[in-house]
């Protein structure tokens, strides 16, 4: 059954006097109502969409071309329940709507996106939005879900009562989407309101107003989501819940090692073969050396990890799109409460498993300022995907794979799990210290809306992976490529009698030797030192750097990176290196975003120093303990 396109039968205004065509369109609505989904459809962009409230935390601008070369600015905004902001992300929406956001044009038109499966409550937001007096299209989204669960609503009636055009659409499937375009072209007239807007400050009155409108429009609320209840019966079950959680986590780590290996071998072989081919066709000389030793060995050794990273992001995607993330926050709330934070902090922390930068942005949803700073400060301890190549490389080089729990958990996956746990413990431990000292605050209530479970779509997951792969390859093509070339050059100067020096005598070697005294107590030599210095730009750079160094040293002997590492590090040194990477804040982008979000250099400097000291001490202790243990 297709629904009729909703065009309120009203006086279409004469072209001149009518609502002038939209120029700057704001997409507004309660959290998780599908704003970004519609924004993406309008602009062709790919803003993040996921099934939990608070995904979008800053404004995003896009363009929509409608007929005769007119381009509209479309602004995607964080979700709000009202126009009284209570957190940073809500403040953004407020400021943009009021035209007070620097660099963002003031919207002259509004698309108000409401979740039609929950119309009564969402319609409350229509009151303050319509009161702004801007041309507004009320978009009732999730028409597909309403229909599937047997609900109904007469959009035309609602439009007449409300005094604003209403479109019943599904942003996900595209059903009814044309009405939105028609509205933006100025083709839909505005009905005269039949109901006066309620007093905005009186929430119960607003809710009554919304209920009355719903009734008038014959709104039939959809049947409760049975599957959500069934699934919650398992995932929030006192015994089954934690058990399922554990099994899933273990399965994820095991797959990251086992399932990714064949793919990684494939990439590895492709990199190796193309490098060999280059070596064969290029004339011998500095260029060939630079390409083969510098670029191929350096960038190639990082690119190998692409399959693993994509696998990790696939799991994170399923977690976020299904709606399980909100349940995880619920389960984690007790732990978070113990260290003085709340379950809401757990959502940014979980997204920090992908990358700390979006995680730090996501803390904007935390209302309490001190809780927010504390969460920003601990987020980089969570194991981000840039650590993954470093961890797997070292683990695979030093730890033989043996089954621990049958085929379900091997030694390597267990070690990786342990490192993730180590990062998490450092995070909550630090939170505890912060929350009981400098960032002490009253306990803030934990209030979190639980989204219904949704089936992650192949398209949605596919697009995520595609975007991820792009980001990863871009980094490989810029930061890592740049560092590899720079390093190769630094390793070949100053020339000695017209020939390249031994690496140890080169500039690169000098850098390594300068830091060596500091890191020698941790069991690292000067080559690891060069890696550590270069990894200040980004963690995975160390893999590329070591690839380049060993590529230069290798002289066609074809020693693998793993073998070379075993030659340079003792097992105790390897453990120390892992601990160092678990704790240290080696990421320029994170430092930059912390400065931006905390509004100054104080916190990023404190954070960098604290994490650096912790990394050194942690690595030192690990080195000593493991050395003693193995002796």
């Amino acid at each position, binding site marked *: 059954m297709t629904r009729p396109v909703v065009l309120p039968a009203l006086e279409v205004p004469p072209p001149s006097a009518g609502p002038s065509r939209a120029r700057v369109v704001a997409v507004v609505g309660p959290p998780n109502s599908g704003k970004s989904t519609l924004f993406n459809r309008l602009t062709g962009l790919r803003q993040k969409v996921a099934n939990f409230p608070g995904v979008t935390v800053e404004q995003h601008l896009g363009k929509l071309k409608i007929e005769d070369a007119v381009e509209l600015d479309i602004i995607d905004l964080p979700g709000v329940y009202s126009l009284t902001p*209570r957190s940073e992300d809500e403040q953004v929406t407020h400021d943009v709507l009021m035209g007070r956001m620097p660099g963002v044009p003031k919207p002259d038109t509004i698309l108000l996106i409401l979740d039609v499966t929950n119309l009564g*409550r969402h319609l409350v937001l229509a009151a303050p939005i319509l009161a702004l007096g801007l041309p507004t299209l009320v978009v009732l989204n999730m028409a597909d879900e309403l229909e599937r669960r047997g609900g109904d609503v007469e959009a035309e009636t609602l439009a007449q009562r409300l005094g604003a055009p209403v479109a019943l659409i599904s942003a996900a499937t595209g059903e009814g989407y044309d009405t939105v375009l028609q509205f933006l072209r100025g083709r839909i007239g505005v009905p005269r309101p039949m109901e006066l807007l309620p007093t905005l400050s009186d929430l119960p009155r607003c809710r009554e107003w919304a209920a009355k409108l719903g009734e008038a429009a014959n709104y039939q609320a959809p049947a409760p989501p049975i599957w959500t209840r069934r699934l919650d019966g398992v995932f929030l079950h006192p015994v089954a819940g934690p058990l399922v959680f554990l099994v899933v986590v273990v399965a994820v780590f095991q797959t990251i090692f086992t399932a990714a290996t064949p793919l990684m071998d494939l990439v590895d072989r492709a990199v190796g073969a193309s490098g060999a081919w280059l070596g064969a066709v290029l004339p011998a000389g500095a260029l060939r050396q630079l390409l083969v030793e510098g670029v191929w060995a350096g960038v190639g050794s990082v690119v190998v990890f692409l399959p693993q990273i994509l696998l990790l992001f696939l799991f994170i995607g399923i977690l976020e799109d299904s709606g399980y993330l909100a349940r995880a926050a619920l389960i984690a709330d007790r732990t978070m409460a113990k260290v003085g934070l709340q379950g809401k902090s757990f959502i940014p922390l979980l997204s920090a498993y992908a990358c700390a930068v979006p995680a730090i942005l996501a803390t904007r949803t935390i209302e309490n300022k001190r809780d927010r700073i504390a969460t920003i400060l601990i987020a980089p301890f969570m194991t981000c995907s840039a650590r993954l190549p470093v961890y797997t490389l070292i683990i695979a080089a030093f730890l033989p794979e043996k089954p621990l729990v049958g085929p379900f958990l091997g030694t390597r996956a267990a070690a990786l799990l342990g490192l993730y746990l180590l990062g998490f413990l450092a995070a909550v431990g630090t939170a505890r210290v912060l929350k009981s000292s400098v960032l002490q605050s009253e306990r803030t209530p934990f*209030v979190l809306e639980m989204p219904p479970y949704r089936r992650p779509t192949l398209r949605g997951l596919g697009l995520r992976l595609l975007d991820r792969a792009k980001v990863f390859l871009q980094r490989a093509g810029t930061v890592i490529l740049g560092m590899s070339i720079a390093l190769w050059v630094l390793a070949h100067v100053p020339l000695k009698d017209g020939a390249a020096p031994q690496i140890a005598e080169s500039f690169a070697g000098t850098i390594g030797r300068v830091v060596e005294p500091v890191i020698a107590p941790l069991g690292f030599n000067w080559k690891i030192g060069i890696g550590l210095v270069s990894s200040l730009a980004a963690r995975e750079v160390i893999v590329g750097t070591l690839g380049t160094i060993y590529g230069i040293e290798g002289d066609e002997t074809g020693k693998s990176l793993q073998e070379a590492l075993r030659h340079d590090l003792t097992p105790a040194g390897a453990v120390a290196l892992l601990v160092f990477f678990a704790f240290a804040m080696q990421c320029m982008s994170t430092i930059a975003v912390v400065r931006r979000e905390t509004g100054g250099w104080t916190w990023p400097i404190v954070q960098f120093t604290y994490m650096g000291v912790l990394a050194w001490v942690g690595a030192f202790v690990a080195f000593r303990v493991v050395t003693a243990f193995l002796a």
Partner: protein
Amino acid sequence: MPHTRHPATLLDLRKGEEAILDRIDLPADVSQRLMELGFLPGSRVAASFRAPGGGPRVYRVDGTEVALRSETAACLHLRPSPPEGTATSS
């Protein structure tokens, strides 16, 4: 008041029970947020799942599900229930 079991706040509701909300005894900004989420005086609230290990509980209110910590739930007072009783299971 009779001495039968009589939930006074949301915290006293067992899973599956529902009751009418009377008032919210919390600072203005928090109660405002709760009201925006549907916890309006006079609305029907049902207790649902609780996070394992005594974590927050999920409440069904106004067509949605919202998780609250016990300490918060204890501040949402219920209307003394009319004769038909407190418990209706779903």
